[in-house]
């Protein structure tokens, strides 16, 4: 199970980073979201992968670690705020520059070397 979990996190990371390496703003935002899923899962898993162990007193005999959950909860919300900021930035950049390339340059897809 751990191997599968790790593989999924790795796949999400790889796909997220691949998207972030694209030259257009929208895939970058999608990639960032994907990467933040991966990071959240990674952080969350640091409390261990336990079933039927919600960290509510009286609900389970051996509750799992609540701290990573608290951290990830705020991370999800902040992640949303940051995504929103990126989205608006991308829209603004397109309206100012006339294109949606991350470097603000239209034209050749190869970056200048």
């Amino acid at each position, binding site marked *: *199970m*751990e*191997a*599968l979990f*790790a593989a999924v*996190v*790795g*796949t*999400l*990371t*790889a*796909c997220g*980073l*691949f*998207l972030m390496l694209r*030259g257009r*703003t*929208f*895939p970058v935002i*999608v990639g960032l*979201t*994907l990467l933040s*899923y991966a990071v959240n899962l*990674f952080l*969350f*898993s640091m409390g261990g*992968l*336990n*079933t*039927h162990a*919600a*960290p*509510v007193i009286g*609900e389970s005999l051996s*509750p*799992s*670690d*609540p*701290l990573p*959950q*608290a951290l990830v*909860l705020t991370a*999800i*919300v*902040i992640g*949303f*705020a*940051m*995504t929103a*900021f990126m989205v*608006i*930035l*991308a829209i603004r950049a397109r*309206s*100012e520059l006339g294109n949606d390339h991350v*470097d603000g340059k239209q034209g050749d*897809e*190869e970056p*200048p*070397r």
Partner: protein
Amino acid sequence: MSLLWILLAPVAGSLLPLLAAQRGRLLLTLTALVPPLLALLLLGLTLPDLLAGDMPHVQLSWMPALGLDLALRLDGLGLLFALLILGLGSLIIVYAGYYLHRDEADARFLAYLLLFMGAMLGIVLADNLLLLWLFWELTGLASFLLIGFWSKLSDARRGARMSLVVTSTGGLALLAGILLIGQEVGSLALGDVLSAGDTLRASPHYPLIVALVLLGAFAKSAQFPLHFWLPHAMAAPTPVSAFLHSATMVKAGVFLLARLTPALGDTSLWALSLSLIGLATLLYGAWFALFERDLKGILAFSTISHLGLITLLLGLGSPLAIAAALLHVLNHALFKAALFMSAGIIDHETGTRDLGHLGGLARAMPLTATLTLMAAAAMAGLPPFNGFLSKELLLAATLDSRLFGGLGAAVTLLVGLAALLSVGYSLRLAYGVFFGRHRSDAPLPHDPPRGMLAPGLLLAGLCLLVGLLPMTLAAPLVTLASQAVQGNATPALDLALWHGPSLPLAISLIAVLGGLLAAMRQPQLARLVALFPRRDARWLFEAAVIRLTKASLWLTLKLENGSLQRYLALLLLTAVAMAGLGLSQVERLTGERGVQPLDGMLVLGAALMVFGAIGSALSHRWRLVSLLMLSVVGLSVALTFVRFSAPDLALTQLSVEVVSMILLMLALFFLPQRPPPWVSTRRILRDLLVAGLCGLVVASLNYALLTRESQSIADFFLRESVPGGGGTNVVNVILVDFRGFDTFGEITVLTLAGLATYKLLNRMKLFMPAGNVEGIHWSRHRHPMILAVIAQILLPLALLVSAYIFLRGHNQPGGGFIAGLITAVALLLQYLARGYDWTRQRLPLSYPLVAVSGLAIATATGLASWLFGYPFLTSTFGHFQLPLIGEIELASALLFDLGVYLAVVGATLMILVNLGRVTTVHRPSIEEEN
């Protein structure tokens, strides 16, 4: 404690001149004189202790972890230098009052000068090597400001920069040396270091320590071949040269050598490095001083030469030589400061410092001539002036020394040659300015005001007095200083002008005659010298600086070519390399805890997520498809949280997912509809490789961590949640209570992000298509009936759910974050179904205000605990009996959670409603026609 005040007086006093800036020159000078005179007075008060054999000492703990204490000591060596710094400093302040033009920023100048004085005092009083280094660097900075005071002149800027670069590079070497010393000795306190000489000399790092310390000292004291900055520092105003380059800054290097002699000296490495470099510097400076045309240039090279002399004496290392070195520190300061002042007067009165344009001024400026002749005679080492005493001691010490073995005679001869040259350039300076014929068309100048002459005359008088009465005026001070350096080995000084016929006297006599000849034949010698090409080290230095700048520019351009994609790829590769390096240290990937079994649901969930992620990556050019694939992953993540016992996370993830999707859909509307062109396959392969590597490393890391036992602080939270926080939902208690301060920061960020998007959307030029990429217009039904009806029915239910989730949050999964998101989604649905205007009329809320008031409530809750004398955000709870409802538990954390709730609602709606409004208000015309 008075030691501290000696140091603080000039440092704090450096502000005084700035206060008196507008009150006229006289008052300004008097104000600036207060700190050094006060410090001198305090120094005088500590003198009885010092003479009684005590060592005044003060120690304040500063950064004990670094071994840095604010520790000061006053011993004989410190006293000698402190007297020079404060005494000469006061004279320079008087002199500067006449030197600077009326319209110059003299207050600033005096402030720099006092700052420099304080830094210099710090060096000589420091009882901790790190503290000493700190002041060492401070003198560098202050001297940079002083040398570059006339910042309009390019020469001043260059000179200041060069001196800063050279001396502070040396300073870095010195720091390394000091840290090595600290490592060997185990302490940086001066007392410990000085008594650990044997340990240091026996250490394998000894040669390295000596090399580093000498590099620092030689750069500061302008020893060959690091001397080249000093002549260019002459671009400074003359009072600066008189202070920094005669008595203080350049002497810091020799001070350090003398200071560390007990710890590092007494080995052949030390002795030979010092004496050979010193000898080379002595000759080099004297030779080039003979061919300078600029008055201050002559003085600069002469200073280099005399600093070499002191270094040579310290290198010879015999008790007499060390005492002679300290005597010469005093003598050189006296005559060189006087000469610099005289050069400044001549420059001031005639407008030139070029020997080619000067001459015959003795009649016009009798007092200046007297002063200059006296000081120049001291510099030449003629009796009955003080320079003669130290020159005789140098010759005697060289003759006595066994250091050079068979080469001893040759070294003596070279020292004699240097003495000859010094007679030559001194004569040339004095004769060239004051005798011969007047070589300029300008009218004859006259002596400057008495106040400008007085300091120089006083110093020249001292040169004579010390020469005449050395045992009274110099010997006690020098003996004290020498005791600080070599303890009981201090020789009984017998200073006198006449010791009867001796070999040194004979050499001196020859040197004087030879010097006369050299001065007379100087033009012929100069022609001879001109045959050889001479490269100023300045050009080498500047070429090196330019090459270095070009190299770093090249490197920067290689790394920063303007492509964000490339930066990201470089960053990722670096991260992979670092993490990979860490992983390679791990013995086995699978840890001791082992793995849990799989089941079908897990495999299905994993397959869904992998499908979504890969699908989203593959379809990145078709934005809508990519987005839908992303939402598959997002929902699966929420399910993962459910499966692995995190109900709060699942709720949050689910509601954030909804909000995010609406946001991204809206964003699609503003971004280009057409898929971007295909990029080269090579790029795709490169990115796949980079991303794949990262994924592999992250997966390995996660697997390795998951299969290992870890220490957790979970027990504390689980134990304290109910008794300490009054809630059974530990995650929520952590958020609003234990780690409330973090949450507070996070809602602040959330609100800020919302406000920032609010501003970014202001006055934006919009690209809004009237239809999709195939040219089909958007739907004519702006607000579908069914959606509108359902949304309206759902609203009260959703608000009820959100209130329920909010209230139960402390004990059951839920809380402010989740409730806020649910409320936001419910309200958003109204905007979606009915449009901005319709909703706005019925819900006239200002969302920035909502978010900010949420923040305000959270802050107020935190501050309220201050009222009761508890730290910020301390929470409390109690059980109350309410009519009809029964017993209810209320926690102050609930109020804090309300703040969180409002901030989340406000920020989320601020972002989405604004973006949505932009689409509806300015809908393209095709919509408006309906």
